């Protein structure tokens, strides 16, 4: 059935409800809402969330925004926690302790801190063990919950509170980790990169695939942060669009090892378009810092080319 935004919104009420305390203009809540809308209405879900913005803003005792079952334990172990829930489900289904007719799905959410960095080990372990779950990283490119410290997902030159753009060191001096490809290397059945774009078709379809593919699956979703990135709250969707149109955040999926690039811009926009509206890159536009923009563009171009090559290579031998 073709994706229809209006129908989805009308027929599938949000399972992540209003009342949470995420910031205006934050990229994460629309992502969570749309991913959960990809659940079949009759299916139950257990959501595991790593400590971070999403957790501390959505479940402040005694209030919760989650209509499905929900568990938070700590920062680095959403994947391990979810793997325990999934193992319990498997065991209790096998022994008849749970009704045969219930269908429960397992979804973990973590920010880039809880996923790229402190939670990478437990994520890798859970994916390798083959638990039937989706792990979603909402990547806002820094430790936003503790006040915008750099993470390994922070783009090069970004001004963060632990990589302040100073007179000697102009922001973060390292390029970002490519976590999506690290997950591809786990040879799990489904890995995808997405974003909240236009009518959310890309995110919805990938979520549906991830949730209903048997085995471990991974979604890396860029989720801009108005505080950390320094954009106007109403510009969220525009920032998302520019991330894709500049190929900073390519939309692609890897199904059983085969790369599919879901969108190839006809006119790839220069990276300045993405960088300029964000205060964290302001220093890059000062006179004499043109080299930083050139350097950033080179990195984006190289990664985009690598992705094009991977798509070609992995699709060249049809089974």
């Amino acid at each position, binding site marked *: 059935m073709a994706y229809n935004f209006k129908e989805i919104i009308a027929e599938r009420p949000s399972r992540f409800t209003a009342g949470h305390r995420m910031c205006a203009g934050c990229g994460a809540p629309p992502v969570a809402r749309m991913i959960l809308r990809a659940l079949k209405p009759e299916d*139950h879900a*257990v959501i*595991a969330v790593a400590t971070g913005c999403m*957790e*501390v803003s959505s*479940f*402040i*005792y*005694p209030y*919760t925004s*989650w*209509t*499905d*079952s*929900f*568990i*938070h*334990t*700590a920062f*680095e*172990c959403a994947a*391990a*926690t*979810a*793997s*325990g*829930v*999934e*193992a*319990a*489900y*498997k*065991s*209790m289904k*096998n*022994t008849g*302790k*749970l009704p045969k007719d*219930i269908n*429960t799905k397992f979804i973990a959410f973590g920010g880039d801190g809880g996923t790229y960095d402190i939670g990478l*080990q*437990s994520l*890798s*372990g*859970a994916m*390798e*063990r083959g638990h039937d779950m989706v792990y979603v990283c909402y990547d806002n490119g820094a430790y936003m919950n503790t006040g915008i410290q750099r993470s390994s997902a922070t783009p090069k030159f970004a001004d963060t509170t632990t990589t302040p753009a100073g007179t000697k060191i102009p922001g973060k001096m390292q390029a970002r980790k490519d976590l999506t490809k690290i997950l591809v290397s786990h040879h799990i059945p489904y890995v995808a990169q997405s974003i909240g774009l236009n009518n959310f078709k890309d995110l919805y379809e990938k979520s549906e695939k991830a949730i209903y593919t048997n085995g471990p699956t991974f979604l890396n979703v860029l989720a801009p942060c108005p505080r950390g990135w320094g954009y106007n709250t109403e510009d969220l969707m525009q920032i998302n669009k520019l991330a894709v149109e500049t190929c900073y955040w390519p939309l692609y999926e890897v199904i059983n090892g085969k790369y599919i690039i879901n969108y190839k811009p006809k006119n790839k926009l220069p990276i300045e378009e993405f960088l300029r509206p964000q205060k964290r890159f302001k220093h890059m536009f000062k006179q004499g810092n043109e080299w930083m923009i050139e350097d950033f563009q080179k990195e984006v171009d190289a990664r985009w080319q690598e992705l094009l090559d991977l798509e070609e290579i992995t699709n060249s031998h049809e089974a």
Partner: protein
Amino acid sequence: MGIRERLSGNEAAATAMKQINPDVVAAFPITPSTEIPQYFSSFVSNGTVDTEFVAVESEHSAMSACIGAEAAGARAMTATSANGLSLMWEMIYIASSLRLPIVMSLVNRAVSGPLNIHNDHSDAMGVRDSGWIQLFSENNQEAYDNLLMAHRIAEHKDVLLPLMVCQDGFITSHSIENIELLEDEKVKDFIGTYKPEHYLLNNKEPIAIGPLDLQSYLFEHKRAQSEAMKNAKKVIIDVANDFEKMTGRHYGFFEEYRMDDSQLVIVCMNSTAGTAKYTADRLREEGIKAGVLKIRVFRPFPSEEIAKALAGQKAVAVLDKSDSLNAAGGALFEDVTSAMFVNGISVPTVNYIYGIGGRDTTEADIRSVYKDLVEIAESGKLENPYRYLGVRSK
């Protein structure tokens, strides 16, 4: 009548776990408890249990997975030692605060550093304030029996706390001794099925677990945990009484050995109690009224009962197999002396840190302690209550 067997402490723990047949076991190998998940894996591979075994990539994930599984509505178990427990530390507190009756077999070993693989109690002492029930075991039989009683205690509606059964690494975990096992059916009936009131996998009642819990509620939640620990005292005794009816084996908060008419008592935990009892028997032949108080239940701490048991002694020595490095005595010593003080019992009491990193504790060592107690009792003087046993002085 039970089944007579010869098993090591690790085999005894694994056998108990097999008979308990938990829904999920998540564990990571670490000496000297490695054999437990190994044996258990063979039960899984051969279909003798229904358990999902989650071979996690770390102990942190082991405890995280146990929390997830128990919260989901399953019975979850794990086994670990020393640094494994240290790596779990963050999750240990979370497990108890979420009121999840997870059961752990802890094979006690020295926590690094420097690295050492042998027995002391620094791992268990490091989590003594974490809200876990802690039962100690002198030998393989007690390690087995304590595990069989564990779920009945932990899952009781007035308790709902995680529980660890401790035994001494290598000394009991790797020593083969006679043991009396129960029939599988008897264990099954004794433990019963786990029926949590609220659990994640109940699609008819979705729940949320693990909130951000701020100034308005955290204190009350912690207080509730504390009350549960108090409630555990009655439940531990009730379960022990039921267990005694079935097996004839008696368990209390602690064992009082030759304390009917004793004057000099050694307080200790786990395998050292065996050496202490043996030594007390020898000293009795020499006319010394030696006794042993072996702690089984360390958390909750049976403060009043211990004070009462020690009232009227002429001198007491508390043996700590872990150094608190605080210039003021070991953890067990502090608890025992505090119990006596609060209950108005005044007996000269001396502390010995001993057996660190697997240092052997012999009959001669225990004799030297009783000899010190004789001197303290006779002189009425106690100089330097903070002592060491079996360590080179320079």
